[in-house]
């Protein structure tokens, strides 16, 4: 029995790493029906998606595969969540992030990568897309009771809209409610500090680490 259990968990891990995205949710379903510990299943999935993230950074797999792996992870989490909830375990909802590319900027790819990596790391991520006005971002964060607002910009000329967002948060007495993190080609740590946001990430992986850290400190 122990042997079968390990085989199934290994198969879940392998299906994630090999981006066999149709198979992963089926294996997770099989593992749940076989009464495997849901935390062990979650661990196999998490190890798998983390390996995919590492491979992406090392150019051993590419953005479409990362998206497929994240999609398999999401589908699997839909199956796992009721069982985790029954155990009163909050895995898979370690924080809610509203993410957007700033007003005037139509670049998606960096934000897409960050969204995928964050989802894969267990965060609930609401991606508002590109060219989003600061007030729309705040409204959505309020609606969803988000923990973090993530802003992306590749254009220097769209950066001022992040300062507008910070001002709006202050004017609406919402500044302490959200952590604001930023990334993208035009963003620098100095700019983030200057406008009083909470953190800068140079790439998606460091963005995940940053958000984990600032939420743990909150």
């Amino acid at each position: 029995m122990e042997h079968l259990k390990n085989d199934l968990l290994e198969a879940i891990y392998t299906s994630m790493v090999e981006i066999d995205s149709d198979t992963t949710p089926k294996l997770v379903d099989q593992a749940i029906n076989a009464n495997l510990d849901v935390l062990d299943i979650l661990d196999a999935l998490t190890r798998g998606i983390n390996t995919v993230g590492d491979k992406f950074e090392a150019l051993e797999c590419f953005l479409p595969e990362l998206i497929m792996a994240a999609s398999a992870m999401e589908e699997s989490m839909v199956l796992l969540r009721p069982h985790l909830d029954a155990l009163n375990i909050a895995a898979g909802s370690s924080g809610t992030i509203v993410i957007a590319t700033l007003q005037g900027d139509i670049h998606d790819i960096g934000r897409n990568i960050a969204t995928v990596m964050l989802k894969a790391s267990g965060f609930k991520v609401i991606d508002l897309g590109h060219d989003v006005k600061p007030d729309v971002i705040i409204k959505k964060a309020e609606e969803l009771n988000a923990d973090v607002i993530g802003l992306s910009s590749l254009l220097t000329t769209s950066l001022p809209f992040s300062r507008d967002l910070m001002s709006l948060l202050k004017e609406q007495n919402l500044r302490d409610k959200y952590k604001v993190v930023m990334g993208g080609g035009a963003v620098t740590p100095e700019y983030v500090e200057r406008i009083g946001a909470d953190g800068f990430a140079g790439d998606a992986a460091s963005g995940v680490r940053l958000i984990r850290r600032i939420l743990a400190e909150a």
Partner: protein
Amino acid sequence: MINIYEVLRRSEEGPYIVENDFDMKLYKVTSRLVKEHGLKFNRELPVVGDDAMANHLFEAAMCLALEMGMLCVSTSRVIRFTEEELRLALRTAPKQFTIGTGRDARVMRARTFGDGYPMLVCGGCPGTPLPEELFLPVMMSYAREPLLDLIIPGSLTTIEGMEVRTNGPLEIRACRQEMIWMREALDRCGRSGVHIYAAGESSSTELGTLAIANEKYMRLSDSHMIPVLSELKTDNARLSRVMTGYEYPAFTTSLIDPIIGGFGGGAEGAAVVLAAAVMLSTAAYGVDMHCLHPIHNKLISSTTKEAMWVDSIVGRAFANNAPVALLADAWTTAGAGTADVLYEAAALAILDETSALNSDALGSTNGVYPNCSGLEARFYAEVVHAAFQQKLTPDQANELIAKLWEKYKGGFTAPNFGKCFDQVYDVKTVMPTAEWLDIYHRVKEDVASMGLNFGA
């Protein structure tokens, strides 16, 4: 170029596709083509000397361009071209033309191997945010360098203390001010006729291009850029720039930034996507030049082995099969005032020169900080001319790049962004500081000791 109205018609009436489906299709088709054409990235040989593989890349790119077309994201319609149209567009694209005016005029060429002409070298600080008070001296530091054949402006980020915003009225003012100061910088250095490349860098929208489409700002001997959205996409804003260029015929350049690790896949796929984008933008935009700017998904810089290989094989592919004027962006991790930036510049200069490319300027710190100056651009140009005079073969170029790589590779994990312009130059005299000059001389001596003959 296909008739512009036909391009616009196709952007409204071409096959409908959801953007995500286009992206995933691109990945599948590109992966298949990479395999079918036997393309293989070799990190030990960033300068590609393999003509057969370069030719395979060209054919793979043609297949990709035909199968995918160019998606107009404003309409979700694909602008498709036939093979005959694409090959005709490449055949009739300008092969040599004069940019700039008077004694500062230069002939831009669609380079081929062994044609006897060195590349044209562009100086400047593409995409780099420059404060108003530094704009003029920074640009003068490039204008003063006689080896720089054309110059690209930096980006003005404020006007009278107010930030320039995308789609805002200050984009108009910033682009006009950028051109006024660019021309003043050239005048003050006695080089009024130098070609201003990618005019309107202070705006990211068509507002900037429209604002300077006037002899008072962007002359007909200058040029502006029309980006291809990653990957193989355009939109009405980009097509508006095409229309602007149609009726105000300054020179135009497509800007192509495939992401290595993105929807094209790895280095091989990114190279196929880049080459396909050159073909599609020749047909759809009718540009005179193309700016190649592959971006590493994590390390960004042009000096990664992957990005260098992509530039090199695309250069060889077009030189062999359909010469067009290709200018490679040279974006470095390090910034002015460091040895690292000079080693990175040298590697790119050797790679670009031996891959039949022209140069799009050196973008210190990947255009993030105003840590840039004319001196590192001078060094890039000196290395280009030395490599040309020495007639470096791909093998010799790879040997030199391997040595240079050892000097700068540590910067990817611990970047040395260097110093702001006003700390490496005297802003009043526009002369490099003794410290920065000393670093330059030491690195030049070191690169000479590696086997590059600056005196030849």
